[in-house]
């Protein structure tokens, strides 16, 4: 993993045959103490497919993907990787089978420079034996170019990542996952802090990853982001799965109203209309 030396923009190895199931979950569940954050969720991540996970705040989306990423262990049900029942003891094991993740809270070390964060855990080294040392030039260059490709023009890759803006940090996390994602790419609200342009780039990345045969799990609250790139849509509500629809069975409008909880949205639009005027609500409705 750390022996990559080709400074390509997006490096992906070992693409599995399109349509094969890479990761599958059956009746999976997670409790934090007596809080049941997730229960009885079943779905699968297939090569060359984008699975969008949708749902209200607190529905359990992040909990779900943390199980896939090895950051949390499930307390009920089964997780199958390549058909084998697995429990990832830590995220390293998930990374080692080619699952790369962008966490909602980004998983960066604030005081460390941007480039060290980018390659953290998968450092590129040169030299031999006990005198192997970091290939700093390569890593700095790569970090800068990968970020530039996302439209982030960093002043200085030596800057502690904690001093970057929210969106810049988000882009580092995404660029890193894309760079190291080998078979599955998991993205938890990657576009939340991003501008329109950067969001577009991320969607493009997702499409490219799908193209190359990776399985992608994509979480977002924006139906306009989810619908164009998604192949399947899994809906969570209050920790339970409310269904798993292929794109052919659902339209953007249905998706939007499902995400918003149907009827409620209309009454909301109505309320807003009273304060802001009718024309405004039309725009709103489109969202």
């Amino acid at each position: 993993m750390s022996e990559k030396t080709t400074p390509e923009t997006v490096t992906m190895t070992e693409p599995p045959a399109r349509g094969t199931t890479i990761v599958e979950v059956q009746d999976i569940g997670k409790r934090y103490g007596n809080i049941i954050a997730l229960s009885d969720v079943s779905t699968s991540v297939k090569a060359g497919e984008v699975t969008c996970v949708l749902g209200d705040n607190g529905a359990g989306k992040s909990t779900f993907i943390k199980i896939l990423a090895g950051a949390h262990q499930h307390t009920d049900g089964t997780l199958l990787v390549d058909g084998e029942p697995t429990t990832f003891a830590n995220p390293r094991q998930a990374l080692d089978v080619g699952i790369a993740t962008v966490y909602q809270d980004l998983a960066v070390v604030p005081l460390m420079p941007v480039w060290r964060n980018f390659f953290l855990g998968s450092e590129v080294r040169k030299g031999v034996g006990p005198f192997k040392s970091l290939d700093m030039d390569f890593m700095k260059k790569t970090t800068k170019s990968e970020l530039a490709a996302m439209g982030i023009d960093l002043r200085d890759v030596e800057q502690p990542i904690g001093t970057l803006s929210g969106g810049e940090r988000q882009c580092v996390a995404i660029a890193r996952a894309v760079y190291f994602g080998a078979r599955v790419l998991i993205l938890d609200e990657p576009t939340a802090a991003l501008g329109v342009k950067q969001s577009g780039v991320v969607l493009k990345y997702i499409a490219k990853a799908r193209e190359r045969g990776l399985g992608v799990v994509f979480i977002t609250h924006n139906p306009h982001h989810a619908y164009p790139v998604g192949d399947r849509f899994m809906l969570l509500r209050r920790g339970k799965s409310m269904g798993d629809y292929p794109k052919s069975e659902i339209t953007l409008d249905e998706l939007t109203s499902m995400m918003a909880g149907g009827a409620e949205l209309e009454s909301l639009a109505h309320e807003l209309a009273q304060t802001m005027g009718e024309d405004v609500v039309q725009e709103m409705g489109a969202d």
Partner: protein
Amino acid sequence: MSTATASDERIAQTSMLSALLKRPEIGALVAAVVIFAFFALTTDAFATASGASTWLRSASTIGIMAVAVALLMIGGEFDLSAGAMTGFTGLTVGILCTQYGLNIWVAILVALVLALCVGFVNGVMVMRTGLPSFIVTLGTFFVLQGLNLALTKALTGQVAIQGMAQVPFYDQPKAVFGSSVSIAGGAVFASVWWWLAVTAVATWVLLRTRVGNWIFAVGGAQVSARQVGVPVFKTKVGLFMTTSGAGWLVGMLLLFTTSTVQSNTGVGQEFIYIICAVVGGCLLMGGYGSAIGAAFGALIYGMANQGIVYSGWDNNWLRAFLGIMLLGAVLLNEWVRKRAEMSR
């Protein structure tokens, strides 16, 4: 070091010097220079070769430990057993040689293995139980302190090692750990070379290797580090073992320089190490610091300690002077660092 686009209009100015000024140890360096200058000017003996020999010697053993403790602190943990460990290893070698007639090199090896085991246990306990290392290593500290006293007393009937110089082959490890060479009229002890070597290696590891990256990461944000695949467990346990290994080294240096160790050797020193690391720019909560800074911290401590003696100030005030000097050094340190931040 800086890869900033020079033409970026969002950066006010940038220079080679400013990259240097960003380093965490810069403040400690300046403070060390100031303290040196102060004592060199106000006392006669301080800046002579033999004077320097004395304060370098007293800084060296503290410095070795401070560097190891700094790595551990950057990794987000403390080791309060580090001081007692220096006594523990020295006593082990002393007892094995003088009471059981074990070959001196074998005894040294046994002490190393024991030290690493204690470090390992410390690390595993901290990682497995999730308890703060402050408390776990405090427990180890108490246990070691008790062992040092009780075992030494039980096995030798004394509270200090006696007759070490009469042990066969004593000269060999003495040459490695306890000898001194004369440079420009001042004796430079082996511990000083060891100190330099340890500082250099630690700095290289920290800044230029993968492990160094991991150390910063586990100290700065353990959960995040784990999420991106850093082997947190191994890194931290390794750090604890490094610290106890350094404790062994210092134990040997003390034993073979003075040819005796007492059962209370090192007790209370653990805080001196932490102080030196912090003066050298380490953050107490981890994730930031430098090995070379800790070495400067030890230098400051050693110079202040001896300098006060050279100055002939009323010795009862020693602690008060030391406190004021420490505060002064840290304030200067901070001021320099802030200035450096501004101009970077």
